[in-house]
């Protein structure tokens, strides 16, 4: 039998086998085939690692060496871990401080680049550019820009006579936090801008035109047309921004190294430290599971508050 004939034979047999199924069964099978890649992806990259993390969290699991089952000890230890609670507190304070500027600035930028006028693409690209740089690279860039000897910030502030001598931005907890926020806003605002821009552009112009006819001003249009119609986009932008902030790590690990005086250790940084520096993988896993629970709760609340109400 030639190769072509063999293939034809196989195709025929498969068809016959499929034909023996009812319409309903075939529909289910087709549906299953369509979702199969996603199911596989989610299983391999989410469900299995999650199950492993849960499993690890009930063990004393050193990075190297033997593991042993310790039940819920890792979870009870968490309540006594002062740095864990301090890191949670710091992470939430950081999230509360960093989310509004990213959102408001993103919204202003989106409004500015909304209309398709000449050269607008250049501005959209410039605002979006920092997003494509890796957070690690941008953090190193910021270390350099913040340096007291060669950094551009000190140079500008000195030239403007706003400071008398070069400042050590990372020496105090407050200034360290502020410069981190500044660097993150610079790095991520472009992404929020693009999300909000898509939302803005999906609002039909006719609504604004009729509002103009009714004599509505800018803020009235913003309150009664723009914001209500962008509810879904705003929800998405805020949820992504909040999740990103709660999971912040690179900027603290690279720029401040958790300092000064351990004042900028985010929760993921503390999980990393326990898992890889102190080799307590089981404890790190337990912290990750608790963090996952917190994130699910936070996202649910956000989703509920910003849900469609009509």
């Amino acid at each position, binding site marked *: 039998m030639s190769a072509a004939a063999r293939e034809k034979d196989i195709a025929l047999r498969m068809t016959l086998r499929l034909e023996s199924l009812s319409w309903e069964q075939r529909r289910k099978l087709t549906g299953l085939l369509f979702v199969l890649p996603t199911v596989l992806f989610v299983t391999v990259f989410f469900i299995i690692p999650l199950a492993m993390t849960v499993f690890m969290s009930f063990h004393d699991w050193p*990075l190297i*060496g033997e593991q042993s089952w310790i039940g819920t000890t890792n979870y009870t230890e968490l309540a006594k871990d002062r*740095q864990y609670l301090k890191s949670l507190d710091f992470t939430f304070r950081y999230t509360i401080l960093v989310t509004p500027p990213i959102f408001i600035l993103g919204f202003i930028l989106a409004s500015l680049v909304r209309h398709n006028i000449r050269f607008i693409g250049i501005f959209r690209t410039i605002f979006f550019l920092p997003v494509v740089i890796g957070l690690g690279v941008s953090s190193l860039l910021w270390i350099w820009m913040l340096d007291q*000897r060669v950094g551009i910030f000190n140079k500008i502030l000195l030239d403007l006579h706003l400071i008398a001598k070069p400042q*050590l931005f990372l*020496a105090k907890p407050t200034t360290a936090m502020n410069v981190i926020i500044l660097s993150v806003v610079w790095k991520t605002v472009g992404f929020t801008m693009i999300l909000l821009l898509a939302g803005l552009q999906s609002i039909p112009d006719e609504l604004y035109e009729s509002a103009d006819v009714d004599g509505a001003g800018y803020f009235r249009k913003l309150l009664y047309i723009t914001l209500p119609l962008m509810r879904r986009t705003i929800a998405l932008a805020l949820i992504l921004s909040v999740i990103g902030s709660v999971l912040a790590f690179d900027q603290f690990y690279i720029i401040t190294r958790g300092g000064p005086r351990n004042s900028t250790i985010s929760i993921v940084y503390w999980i990393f430290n326990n898992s890889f*520096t102190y080799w307590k993988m089981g404890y790190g896993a337990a912290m990750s599971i608790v963090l996952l629970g917190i994130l699910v709760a936070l996202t649910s609340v956000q989703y509920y508050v910003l849900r469609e109400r009509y």
Partner: protein
Amino acid sequence: MTSRRIVFAVLIMALCIGALPLSAQDEGVTMTMWVRNIGDQVQELVDAWNDRGGNQIELTVIPPNEFVTKMGAAIAAGESPDIASIDLIYAPAFAAAGQLLDITDWVDALPYADDLLPAHSELGTYQGRKYAVPFLIEGSFMMYNKGLFEAAGLDPETPPTTWDELLEAARAISAIDDETYGYYFAAACAGCNAFTYLPFIWASGGDVLSEDYSEATIATDPIVREALEYYRLMWEEGLIPESASIDDGGSFVSAFGTGTIGIAGTGAFGINVYRNDHPELNLGAFHIPGKDGGAASFGGGDVIAIGSGTQYPEEAWEFLEWMMSDETQLELYAARNRTTVRVSMLENEYSKDDPLVLTAASALAVGKSPYSLVYNDLFNDPNGPWLEMIQIAILDGDIDGALQLGQERFTQIIEG
């Protein structure tokens, strides 16, 4: 020649050509070796080894702060190197985890086994078995700028021997001008301060851990408080540049090289750096002093071990043996201002006229290395209690708070 013979001849030739690279490969194996980034010494050694032909070594240099993390992750992933140069302080932890090859028999068979530096050898030993041998030898000591001593009206040939003398020298140097400072320490670098600040406490008879390393003595040992107050005083008086407060080790060596610092802690690694990069500096060295005299040093550096998962244990040992041999120690260590791994060779034809190298070598006589499985968590971790205590006490001035926090966190970590 018949066509059959021609085919036969061609086949033979092809076989010979094909075998050439094979036989070249058979001459040696390529081993992987990891080292933390502390200067060129290891690269020079590995280059010299590779130039001999035969077994080769592929060196991977890892940022010092990330060595333990990367090594741990690599071991967990089953990708550990054949040979590892490990900060000696971590050797017990890696040996305890069963990740280093037991080389007791090989070490004991060396004719100079008893001549290997004792502090390093002790840290390479776990439960009576030997897992690592001395490799990079660093005893901490103080480097001083003789030019600035002279400019400040101090005798450049009489370095300080007590805390008070050091303080007075730092004050005099700081008084030269606004750009010059008497003293320097990297206030955001945990490891640097274990290396150069702990000896201030040891030299005065104090310690932050009990003798068997099972208890923290931060709150109970009065010397710890006095040492913190001593640095705090220098900080308050402006004898240390403000930029030191954010130095996470990046300027630990280079700050002194600027020529604006009078005295700074360093190790043998500093000698070549300053001599090569700053030949204009007139350098002097002295031991880290105790409050009323005496001296101490942190016996640091690396030990070298063979990974328990290696396929080439004999070949790796061959490198270790070559490294410790008379010739390598003399020509690649001593001749290049480096401290030898053999006690009897500390004073040698190269070091005998070099006061800096002699100070570095003699620092080992007063050297101490804490033997603790949780050393990293206590001292070296940038977010650990040692650095936090130093920063709160010296930079913020809250000595009581720092002592209490240090005692609590040390105890928590020691008790697991």
